[in-house]
């Protein structure tokens, strides 16, 4: 509509954040599908990752219209929190972290996995991949935005 982003750097940064939004929204809808439609029980670690993921769906569009690179700074704590929780969750499932060390409510053990695609892709792994891609894309868009400021 308005051509506020003429420089190619800026528009590249815009598309990167747009991609982050697409990934965050896919992740959100997928996790909602698992819990609300397939009725997979949600363990505590999944909730922590949801806390980190869901706000991105709402926050990122605000930085797309108009384009605002400050969003990278505002979302990074969430992404870092989510990434580490996902990593911890993957380690719990892989039994690298001992069971006693996991903060899980009785009844829904985080070490159990309910969904398994292609033989290795369970929910914590999907979450870790999602947060990794989001982190990398945000980092790239940060680089573009810095490059743009120097011009």
């Amino acid at each position, binding site marked *: *509509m308005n051509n506020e982003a003429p420089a190619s750097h800026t528009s590249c940064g*815009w598309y990167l954040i*747009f991609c982050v939004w*697409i990934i965050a*929204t*896919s992740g959100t*809808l997928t996790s*909602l*599908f698992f819990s609300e*439609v*397939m009725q997979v*029980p949600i363990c505590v670690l999944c909730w922590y990752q949801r806390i980190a993921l869901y706000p991105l769906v709402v926050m990122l*569009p605000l930085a*797309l*219209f108009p384009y605002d690179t400050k969003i990278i700074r505002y979302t990074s704590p969430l992404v870092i929190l989510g990434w580490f929780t996902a990593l911890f969750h993957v380690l719990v499932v892989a039994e690298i972290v001992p069971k006693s060390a996991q903060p899980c409510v009785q*009844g829904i053990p985080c070490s159990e996995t309910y969904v398994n695609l292609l033989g290795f892709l369970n929910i914590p792994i999907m979450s870790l991949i999602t947060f990794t891609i989001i982190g990398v894309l945000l980092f790239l868009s940060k680089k573009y935005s810095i490059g743009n400021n120097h011009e």
Partner: protein
Amino acid sequence: MNNKTLFISVAVLFCLVFIAAVAVYKSQQTPSLANEVLPALERINAPTKGGNNAKVTIVEFFDPACGTCSQFYPLVNNLVKKYQGKVKVVMRYAPLHKGSGDVVKMLEAAHLQGQFWPALELLFANQQRWVEHHVSNPQSALAGIKTLPLDHKQLEKDWQSRKIAKTVDQDIQDGKTLQVRATPQFFVNGKPLVVFGYQELIDLVEEAIAQAY
């Protein structure tokens, strides 16, 4: 295409894909249980109400400390009364609340003396006296049960007995097999109540009656 149009189209696409995925998933769901888990629905001597020859069996997994179970109690009673002789209800223990494990043992001990239903009614009616912040207080529950005409000594002995512990363990195990994660959970002639609600339960029961009679 400008950025706003792009964003809106992708958002709409997301909505459509999600709705389509839900529709596809729901249409593929079979509401019946797999044959190998069906034996988990029944336990000999589980508390029952309604005609013994009824062809429609409602199996209810319940926790005496669960508020929704208490609200559903008169509604399930109505169903059994309305379709007298055609519908019976079988109660299975699912002590999901803290402290409820002992309370269901006391209920089972009352059941041995033929007082399951009065005891259950009493516990449901006085829930606020023995359940605090979703935690059961077995001693208060026991004091309540003791107001019924029961052999107190026998009751005390029974609820801590190994036999009753075994019975309750079997219910808990069967609940796990049937993936009971919340109470009350209903099964009508082997079909689980998928969407929770009183009207949904009536529909499921009426459907089973129509098939059986």
